[in-house]
């Protein structure tokens, strides 16, 4: 009942803000990373300079944050010069409030070094990041899934079609502005012969 006057202190304003008392052990609002020191990030920084904006460790997992036009050359370099010959996964995360809306995440593993690293890059909405298919064949379906779910189009992908959803579906469901119950009503009516799916 915020509009009623406070009975114990009638002179107090009705919408008085609560006393600012931050809880003492509030977890930080950003990722508490530590710098990643080692030969690999040092060599990469020498080779690629400003393209690598961060080399960090979080939860004892190493990752690089790089500029998105340098991703493929870094992955290629890692494959041929540092034995990171297995592309584990490509995925994306949507941050709708950021100017560079998407994070693309490449997870790489090296059998020889028994080491796993992540490469993260921020991608603006309209841009077309380069495809990794020419370096790792497995990127084909992974990039198709990212395209299907987030609508990120990869430049130079040999066969960029939707993979899990129907080809004529509208919308990219893993974007944050796609609500849980949203569906392509037109598609559902045309193809399933029902009014709506829910």
């Amino acid at each position, binding site marked *: 009942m915020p509009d009623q006057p406070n009975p114990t202190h009638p002179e107090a304003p009705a919408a008085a803000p609560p006393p600012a008392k931050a809880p003492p052990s509030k*977890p*930080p*609002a*950003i*990722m*508490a990373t530590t710098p990643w020191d080692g030969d690999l990030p040092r060599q990469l920084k020498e080779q690629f300079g400003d393209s690598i904006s961060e080399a960090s460790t*979080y*939860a004892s*997992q190493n990752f690089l944050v790089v500029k998105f036009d340098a991703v493929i050359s870094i992955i290629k370099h890692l494959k041929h010069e540092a034995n990171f*010959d*297995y*592309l*584990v*996964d490509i*995925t994306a*995360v*949507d941050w709708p409030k950021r100017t560079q809306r998407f994070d693309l*995440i490449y*997870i790489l593993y090296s*059998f020889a070094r*028994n080491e*796993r690293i*992540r490469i993260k890059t921020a991608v603006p909405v309209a841009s077309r990041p380069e495809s990794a298919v020419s370096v*790792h*064949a*497995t990127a*084909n*379906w*992974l990039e198709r899934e990212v395209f299907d*779910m987030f609508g990120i189009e990869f430049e130079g992908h040999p066969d960029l079609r*939707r*993979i*899990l*959803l*129907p080809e004529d579906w509208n919308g990219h*469901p*893993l974007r*944050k502005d*796609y609500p*849980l119950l949203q569906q392509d009503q037109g598609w559902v009516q045309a193809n399933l012969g029902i009014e709506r799916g829910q």
Partner: protein
Amino acid sequence: MPEATFLDTTELVLNMGPQHPSTHGVLRVVLKLDGEKVLGTDCVIGYLHRGVEKVAENRSWVQFNPYVDRLDYVAAVSNGLAYCLAVEKLLNVEAPPRAQAVRVILTELNRIGSHLLWLGTHALDIGAITPVFYCFREREESIKILEKYCGARLTTHAFRIGGLPAEPYDGFARDVIAFCDMFLPKVDEYEELLTNNRIWIGRLRNVGVLTAEECKQYGVTGPILRSAGVQWDIRKAMPYSGYDKYEFEIPTRTNGDTYDRYIVRIQEMRQSARILRQAAESLPEGPVMAKVSKVVKPPVGEAYVSIEAPKGELGFYVVSDGSAQPYRVRVRPPSFINLQALDRMVRGALIADVVAVIGTLDIVLGEVDR
């Protein structure tokens, strides 16, 4: 004199699936054929897409736990383990030793169950009827232990973030050891039926060959990678849940064909039984749950954790924004990524080999489509 006319050599496009007994679910493969020879394939997937990654963003970390069982539903325990380990990584907690040992036992039981289901249905695809009855007979015993432990047979929801939902029942370790005693001679029985069977060898040897180099190119993991000679198993390479405490070997072969994948999986079942016995005999005492608050709120951060599931590397990439709901959960499903190599494996082969290769890939469409 008119030139000799030949029969038309047109390409034939054939739909295999989505309703086809040998595709192990709703997989549709569009085959381009020249007579019986496969010129190319196109996998059409997504018939079982439920959008679990979207669901995760609308549930709490705890609520999402049972959903992961529906990915690879023949090895639900592995999915639960990978998810719990990923969230535990974010929370920076570790399950107590007793919980870890029970986790290993249930996961290995489930691996045996998954391999048995694969063996039975794969043999059925090839035309051997008997193994499927043998395999389901023993799989039932492994499921019975799961059922006694948590009440469910397939979608078990066996683990919680931080440990186990409950202390294992009285006689749990005894049941597991009895299972091992019963199971190992049965593996010899399967081998008697199949390993030196001329038809079996004829249908499998040199079919669907994938070299180690190609496996790495396509990100193929699990028994398929090991059959090509790469001795790589996440249980050994990056041990989790106390796997480093148990003695076991990583079976490998060198040809990378369908027959070698069969041998690798058979030997893996023996190794799993070996782990089961060690874990059951040395089951530590103590609590089964770490200190985790009822509302799981990991700090802002991200982590990728993967385990050796029966089909290969199963990973969860989780991102937390500090709230009680995941910001993003990405499943790295082994079946999806292994299936991509199907085209490479069957190109130039005969249409009958497609059935053998789909079988040997050991896919579960619940995990492919998510």
